[in-house]
């Protein structure tokens, strides 16, 4: 239903979104997750046709938001970050205006407004001025606005921000109920929220796609442990300890590919080096706290995967043990650094923010 292909957006010299590619299938509820400033709002605005991408292609129900803006806009219900409300209108008057704006046919407008009011629980305030409503009600009016006309695609930018816990629960339930009939893309910087509502999560950070998967798979992967890039001096001198086999090396590579990134690894430079690398890997796997070690392309390069759920001190201890083990085997460490921005880092941020937000609320 929603497709993004290599979408980028530059703003005033800054790159907000870079090379973003993902798809949302019909009927899916997808969470769009990322810390503040990750490019979530920009991406959603591009999908709704509010702003054009600098590069790449967007398709909503097969239409380009820039080429066929009307076709896209009539299929999308959009709740921006700040609900677009006119304070000087009554709730029902406002929703009626939105119905007109969304080209709901004249005879269906009243019913459409009534349905949206009922679904978002606005009945008691329907005659009041939007400007006189509390934050929670306003958010709900914004939501009701997006539901007007029953559009197949719903895009919610931080739908629960600023609501109290009770309201959050209600809104989440409402969005869950929309699944199936509607394709929903909702953004959040709160992991548990996305976990609670969505069938799939797309994570972006600094404008780039970090990961996309089912929430459970992501959680699993989160607990898959931290990753480090390791380089050792290879080959070491005569009298190698390891008795590497090509078979073991192949096994390890397969595991890594399935487990983490799917990137092709282990382009052996030579049979002897590959054997030696496999030996080092085997050696390290025996270290307590190391889950897996995968040789990488260049000679002496490995991906070091620690056991999941380690605390920071524990992780440091494991790395210490790795150091001594390699030293003992006379493979001096040239580099030991955290692998590129990891899913975990993003998650840590997200979880922390949730806590901070929760405390603040």
């Amino acid at each position, binding site marked *: 239903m929603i497709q993004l292909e290599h979408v980028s957006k530059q703003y005033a010299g800054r790159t907000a979104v870079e090379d973003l590619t993902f798809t949302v299938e019909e009927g899916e509820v997808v969470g769009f997750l990322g810390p503040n400033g990750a490019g979530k709002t920009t991406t959603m*605005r591009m999908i*709704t*046709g*509010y*702003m*054009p991408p*600098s590069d790449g292609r967007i398709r909503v129900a097969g239409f380009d938001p820039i080429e066929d*803006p*009307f076709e896209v*806009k*009539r299929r*999308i219900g*959009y709740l*921006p*970050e*700040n*609900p*677009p*409300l*006119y*304070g*000087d*209108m*009554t709730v029902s*008057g406002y929703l009626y*205006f*939105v119905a*007109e*704006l*969304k*080209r709901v046919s004249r005879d269906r407008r009243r019913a459409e407004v009534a349905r949206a009011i009922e679904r978002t629980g606005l009945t008691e305030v329907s*005659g*009041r*001025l939007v400007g*006189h409503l509390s934050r929670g009600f306003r958010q709900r009016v914004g939501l009701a*606005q997006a539901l007007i006309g029953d559009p197949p695609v719903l895009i919610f930018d931080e739908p629960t921000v600023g609501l109290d816990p009770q309201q959050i629960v209600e809104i989440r339930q409402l969005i869950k109920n929309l699944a199936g009939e509607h394709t929903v893309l909702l953004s959040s910087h709160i992991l548990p929220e996305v976990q609670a509502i969505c069938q799939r999560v797309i994570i972006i950070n600094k404008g780039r796609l970090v990961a996309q998967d089912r929430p459970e798979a992501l959680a699993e992967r989160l607990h898959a442990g931290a990753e480090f890039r390791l380089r050792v001096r290879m080959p070491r001198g005569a009298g190698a300890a390891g008795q590497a086999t090509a078979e073991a090396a192949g096994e390890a590579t397969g595991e890594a590919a399935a487990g983490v990134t799917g990137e092709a690894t282990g382009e052996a430079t030579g049979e002897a080096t590959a054997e030696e690398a496999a030996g080092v890997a085997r050696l390290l796997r025996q270290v307590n706290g190391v889950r897996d070690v995968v040789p990488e392309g260049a000679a002496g390069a490995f991906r070091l995967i620690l056991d999941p759920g380690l605390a920071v001190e524990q992780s440091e201890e494991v790395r210490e043990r790795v150091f001594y083990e390699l030293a003992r085997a006379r493979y001096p460490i040239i580099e030991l650094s955290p692998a590129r921005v990891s899913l975990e880092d993003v998650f840590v941020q997200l979880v922390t923010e949730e806590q901070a937000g929760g405390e603040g609320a």
Partner: protein
Amino acid sequence: MSGVWTIYRKELRAFLVAPLTYVLTGVFLALGGYFFWATVVISGVASLAGFFGNTTIVLIFLIPVLTMRLWADEESRGTGELLLTSPVSLGQIVVGKYLAAVTLFAGMTLLTAGYPIILYLFGEPYTGPVVAGYLGFLLLGAACVAVGMFTSTLTDNQVIAAVSGFGILLLLWLLQWAAEALGGTAGAILGGISALNHFASFNEGLIATVHAVYYVTVVAGFLFLAVRNLERRLWRSPERGAQSTILTVAVVGILVLANVFAVRAPWQLDLTPEGRFTLSGQTRQVLAALRGPVEITAFVRTGSDSPVPDLVQAYGKASRQVKARVVDPLREPSLAQKLGVQQYDTIVVQQGSRTRKIDPDSLYTTVPGEYKTEFNGEQAVTRAILELGQEQQLKVAFLTGHGEASPEEGLTQLEGDLRGEGYDTVTFNLAETGKVPADTSVVVVAGPQSDLSPDELEVMRKFVNGGGRVVLLLDPSQRSFSGWASLARELGVELGQDVVVDPVRAFIFDVLSPLPVMEDHPITSPLSERRMQVMLPRARSLARAALPATASGAAAAAAPATASGTTTGAGTASAPGESAAAVAGPPVVTSLLRTSAEAWGEPLTGERVKIEKNPGDPGGPFDLAVAVERANPAATEGEPAPVAVVVGNSAFIQDDFLGFQGNRDFFLNAINWLTGKKSLISIRPKVFAPPMITLTPNLVWYSFYGFVVALPLLLLVSGGLIWWRRRAL
């Protein structure tokens, strides 16, 4: 379209519930009401021009405040995101919002309907200017709203939107000053851009496409800019840049072309009561038949409300052959000097090397006893154009040598008028030349102070008997001039040796200056139609000669013949002398100007006498001016040909008196009648009569409290009520 309608209704609703709308409308009505009251009620002129003229300035301040929220508010509230992600285009949004604001402005304007109602109830306003004024006011407001719509898209800050809107509008206004200071082509272009200029003609009562197209251009241009600006701010992206540049160029091109077309093919509806901007059918015929380019230059003081510029521009618009220019002589003194222009409102018409100058004196006539002025500009200009196109000019020769007034002395203004009528003027002295200049159409003898010598008399006799025409203007004199008397007698006229005293029909300040009764004649009837008087300061009476004089030897009899009202023409004697060969019939004398029956002739004896009717004085009515015709020998049907006009006074055409009411026209009509030109063309003068309104003192105050206090308060109160009711929602 439905998008526009949706936005329009939402926006209009937003205006109607906003207290600011009511405050602005209240302020607008208070100021408008005051301007109306001050210009109409106080001055007593039933016209809305003063109200419109002043209130337009208010719009500069008011409309940007009205329009500031149009987009800036959407942006600051974030509601723009809703609009822009809904199936409506930017264009629909902008147009919908614009139309809502224009509707509101129209509503505000509608609330001024009380002003014209007062005018129609208590006065007699001209409907044309009221209608045109309202139309122009609405167009001007629509243009201001478009500017405000544009500045509202510049920012999410309403104050900045309002202030920049005010800035742009003020600039559009003040361009007029720059235009005036600059002059020339640059000035004309700036003046064309200035919003003020275009409204002025609506306010005078002219609906012209040029001006309407200007406002439509401003509206279209600024709405286009608003859309472009939103696009640019929201969607700046390089590949759309080139496209939008092309589009911008195209739109600007279309707007410029529309204006050029409107200038080239002007259409206008003249609703002014006097048809100020409309040329008569006769003029348009003359212009259509033009065979070469004509240049018309008007010398007008900048900022005067003279009708001359409009007139001259009307000629320029009516024909491509005409190049019309309006010049301030202070700005271009060299041109004024070159063309000999010394007064404001002088019009110079040029074709090739030939020039006609029309003095302001001949443009205006004040209708006595009534508060209105006639403007004869069109007749004067069209005549000048006609005469320039004529192959040959008729020559008017002024006799000199006997102390006569001449173009050089005493008749300078008259000379200008004659040239304006298409005559060439020369002077001649019979003692020097011995004959009348060749090709002379009319000889004018303007108040000789000494007698005609017998030789000269002979020349003159030959001239008049040979088909020449003469205007004899002979002031009362103590001396009797036998030469002049016999020349007059030759024309069937006997000169009275007196000065006429008319106690009934005389200039109010001077009993010796008769304002004679006009007899029905082509020379006088145009004057009597316009109720214009001729004043003859000191006039002698004229009588019909019993017989045409035959020779120079016939000395004038001093005694004036009694003039009877319906004098039989001169006798039946055949014309004598060899010079009379061309003359078939005896002179037929017709009265032009007559005194009342109460007039008498005070004999001029040289001694001071008391002015009173003595038993011996001849009694009136007397002729003071006569026209003389003779049966034309050449014409088989025997239609009489004009020969002479004789007036017992010459001072009336001298510079001091020429301007008096009908004096100039009387003389020019006489010349035209003599030359058979009559008038080349006669166009009804345009009459300015300000529409009047009379209000009782009570009404004056009621209208003040009604328009300046009550109506604005009503608006404020209703705004307050709406706020109060919605407060609880």
